[in-house]
């Protein structure tokens, strides 16, 4: 996978998102090759969520362009949606439906053929097969997160967006989450928002620091000196952009 579409999974050019005088995103440009893992860092209100919202077609850019999987986020929005997945700190699951019902509902939304089989397969993969008929309401935080990974993978997306996936996870759940992510690491491109610098750097192949809607630092993993990067990050989060 990922060998015969364009080299860049994500291409962002002069992406700007303004409302009135507030610039949530200010001329952001970057590329992300297919199969890469991008970690986006930045203080609160830096525009991380807005950036992911634009890339996931939930918010339209004010100017500039962004393409994901070679599809424009505005013109190709509907098509693009079936090729991206989101794992958030919110489980994005209905508590009053069972695990199977949740997945089958989203299978319908994505128009997946042979949904039953696919759902079964995924539930086994995230080791929730024994709780498949239980209401999601009764699940622990870790189980929720596993099921939400299954939900995100349902339609075999090319690009996965992770929105602070570690917040609220206990260490054990984190480990399971990590191992699941590493299992699918090969076949997907990842874009992750994180506050957790260590975790973000551990996983990433590319890193980006946003502040006040601008890219202040964009490096690949090999260029990053962990200590220096951490110092940079702290200075940005601490006192804002000089």
């Amino acid at each position, binding site marked *: 996978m990922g060998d015969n579409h364009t080299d860049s999974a994500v291409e962002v050019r002069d992406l700007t998102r303004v*409302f*009135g*005088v*507030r610039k949530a995103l200010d001329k952001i440009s970057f590329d992300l090759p297919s199969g890469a893992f991008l970690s986006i860092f930045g203080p609160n209100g830096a525009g991380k969520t807005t950036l992911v919202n634009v890339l996931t077609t939930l918010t*339209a850019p*004010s100017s500039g362009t962004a393409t994901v999987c070679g599809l424009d986020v505005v013109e190709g929005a509907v098509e693009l949606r079936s090729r991206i997945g989101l794992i958030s700190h919110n489980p994005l699951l209905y508590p009053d439906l069972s695990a199977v019902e949740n997945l089958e509902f989203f299978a319908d939304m994505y128009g997946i053929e042979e949904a039953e089989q696919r759902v079964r397969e995924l539930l086994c993969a995230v080791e929730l097969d024994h709780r498949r008929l239980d209401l999601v309401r009764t699940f622990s935080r870790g189980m929720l997160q596993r099921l939400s990974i299954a939900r995100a993978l349902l339609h075999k997306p090319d690009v996965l967006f992770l929105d602070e996936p570690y917040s609220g996870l206990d260490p054990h759940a984190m480990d399971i989450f990590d191992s699941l992510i590493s299992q699918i690491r090969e076949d997907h491109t990842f874009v992750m928002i994180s506050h957790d610098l260590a975790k973000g750097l551990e996983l990433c192949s590319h890193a980006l620091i946003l502040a006040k809607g601008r890219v202040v630092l964009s490096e690949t993993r090999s260029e990053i000196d962990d200590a220096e990067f951490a110092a940079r990050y702290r200075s940005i989060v601490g006192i804002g952009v000089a």
Partner: protein
Amino acid sequence: MRQLKIAVVMLLIGGLLTTAAFFLAFYTAEVQRFGTVTLSEEIDSAYPLVGVSNEGLQYERPWFSQKIFYFHVPVAEASFLVLILSAFFGVRFLTTRRKEYDTKSRIAMETALTFVALTMITGVLWTKASWGVWWDWEPRLTTYFIMMLLMVAYFVLRNSIEDEERRAVYAAAFAVIAAIDAPISFFITRLIPSQHPVVFKSGFATSNLLPFILAQVGMLMIGYAIYVMRMSEERMRERLEVAKEALED
């Protein structure tokens, strides 16, 4: 700043026109008649005797309170126009997503609400003077009341949303739907059979038309001036905010 000056000039002209209309309404406009009045003895009246009953002589009743018409109706009509303007800017906002249209829509709605409040007050006074009651659930009053509620709801909605952009989108959507609903309420009250008598209609002489037109034009000018003034205030406030933010960096 130039716009503000134009607004002030418009305001003065509007004020002049409405004042002129006010005087014309008393000096040249014919006094309309409304119903009859029964008097015990014969009088030398400018108003014709229409009948004799057991209680006395019936004369046509001079309808002095009708003078409220000359400033009540122009205010009401201006309020309708400004509401439609607000919805128009709402549509513009939804298609362009530019904040200025949200501001315009809000200011227009605010102006409209001011005018609606004034229409209500003058209307209630007129109702009391000519029908003897402060309020009557008569179609025009009812629909106007509904329209006022819709406008109040618009501001309730705005005040209950934190996120700036979401507030703008919801407000625009509601402005549009309110502007659609207002005429529907207006027509529906006329078409639904009810126990109330059909609303009377007043005749209209040429001498009454002149002050009415003057007042209408004047009122629209005042409305426009108020809108422009509020807009330039809002713009200034925005610029100030930007400047302050720039200073803090």
